[in-house]
C-alpha cells in the first residue's frame, strides 16, 4: 500500500472513532459523511471502483441526507461535552473482537501479508488458477459483459442480488409501516 493508502486508512480510522465518540448528533453525521468519502476513495485506490461509487453515492450522499432530514424532523440534543464517555466493558469487548478477527486475517483466502499466493488471487502470472482469475477470464465468454463485477452480481450471484433488492424494497415498506402511513405516502 502506498503512502496515500496509509494516509487514507488513518483518516478513515480517525473519522470512524470520532463518529462513535462525538456527543453532538449533527457533528457525528457530518463526520460520518467524511468517513464514507474517505472509504470511497480507499475503495477506488484499491481498484474497486464499483464499490467506491456505491459508497460515495449511498454512504456519503443518501445516508447523510436521510439522517439530516431525520434530525430536522426530530430533535438535536444539546451536548454539553464534545466527546462521550467511553463505556469500558463495551470498548474492551469490541477491541477483543477486533483482535480475534485480526488473527484470522492470515487465513483469509486473499493474497496475505507476505504476498503468498492463495486460492483467490492465484500465483502471480497465472490468473486462471484462482477464483478471481477464473471470473476475469471466463466472464466475457459466458455472459457477454466486460464488467466482471456486474456479471458476478447479476448472473453468477443473481439470486443473492434478488434477495438484496427485495430487502431494499422491504426497507421502504417498513418505513411506511413505522411512520403509520396507511397508503404509500
Amino acid at each position, binding site marked *: 500500500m502506498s503512502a496515500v493508502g496509509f494516509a487514507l486508512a488513518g483518516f478513515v480510522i480517525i473519522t470512524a472513532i470520532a463518529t462513535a465518540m462525538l456527543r453532538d448528533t449533527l457533528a457525528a453525521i457530518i463526520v460520518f459523511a467524511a468517513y464514507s468519502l474517505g472509504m470511497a476513495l480507499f475503495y477506488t485506490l484499491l481498484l474497486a471502483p464499483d464499490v467506491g461509487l456505491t459508497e460515495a453515492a449511498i454512504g456519503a450522499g443518501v445516508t447523510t441526507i436521510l439522517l439530516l432530514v431525520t434530525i430536522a424532523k426530530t430533535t438535536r440534543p444539546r451536548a454539553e461535552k464534545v466527546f462521550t464517555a467511553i463505556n469500558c466493558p463495551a470498548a474492551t469487548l469490541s477491541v477483543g473482537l477486533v483482535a480475534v478477527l485480526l488473527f484470522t486475517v492470515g487465513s483469509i483466502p486473499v493474497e496475505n501479508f507476505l504476498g503468498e499466493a492463495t486460492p483467490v488471487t492465484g500465483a502471480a502470472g497465472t490468473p486462471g488458477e484462482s477464483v478471481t482469475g477464473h471470473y476475469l477470464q471466463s466472464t466475457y465468454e459466458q455472459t457477454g*459483459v466486460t*464488467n466482471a463485477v456486474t456479471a458476478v452480481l447479476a448472473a453468477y450471484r443473481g439470486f443473492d442480488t434478488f434477495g438484496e433488492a427485495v430487502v431494499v424494497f422491504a426497507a421502504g415498506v417498513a*418505513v411506511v409501516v413505522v411512520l403509520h402511513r396507511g397508503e404509500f405516502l
Partner: protein
Amino acid sequence: MSGSDSIRPYTESEIIMTAVRIVAPFVLTYGLFITFHGADSPGGGFQGGALIGVVVFMLAFAFGIAPTREWVGSGLMTALAAGGVIVFVSVGLGTLALGGKFLEYGLYEPFLGPDATKWGMEAIEIGGVAAIVSGVIMALFFLTAAGYASQGGEDV
C-alpha cells in the same frame, strides 16, 4: 420545515434554484449512464438508481419538499419500487417456466438471440435493481421529511 411560511411553499434562494437547474440534468444523465452502461464500466443498477434518487433530493431542497413530493407523486415511487420487484421476479420465474433454474438467462436465447445472458442481466439491473433503489430512496426521503403520520406530521 419549521421555519417555512405556511402560505407560500418554502423555497430556497434564487441562487440555489439556478444552480440546481444547471446541475440536475447532468446528475440525472450521469445516473442513467451508470445504470445503462453498468455492464461495461464501473457502476450498475444500485449506484445509478441512487444517483437518480439524489436528483429528486436536489430538486426537493431547492424547490421545497412538499411541492416536489406532489410533482413526483406517490404513484411513480410505488410503481418504481414495486415494478422493479415484479420485473426481477418475472425475469427469474420466466426461466423456471422455460424449464431451467432461477435466472438462467441462457434459456432466453430463442427469443433474444445469442446475447440473451447480457440482455437478461441488463433487464435485472435497469428494470429491477435501479428502479427499486431509486423508488425506495425517494420514498424514504419524502416519508422521513413528512414525519410520523399520527403525531402532527404533515398531511400528505
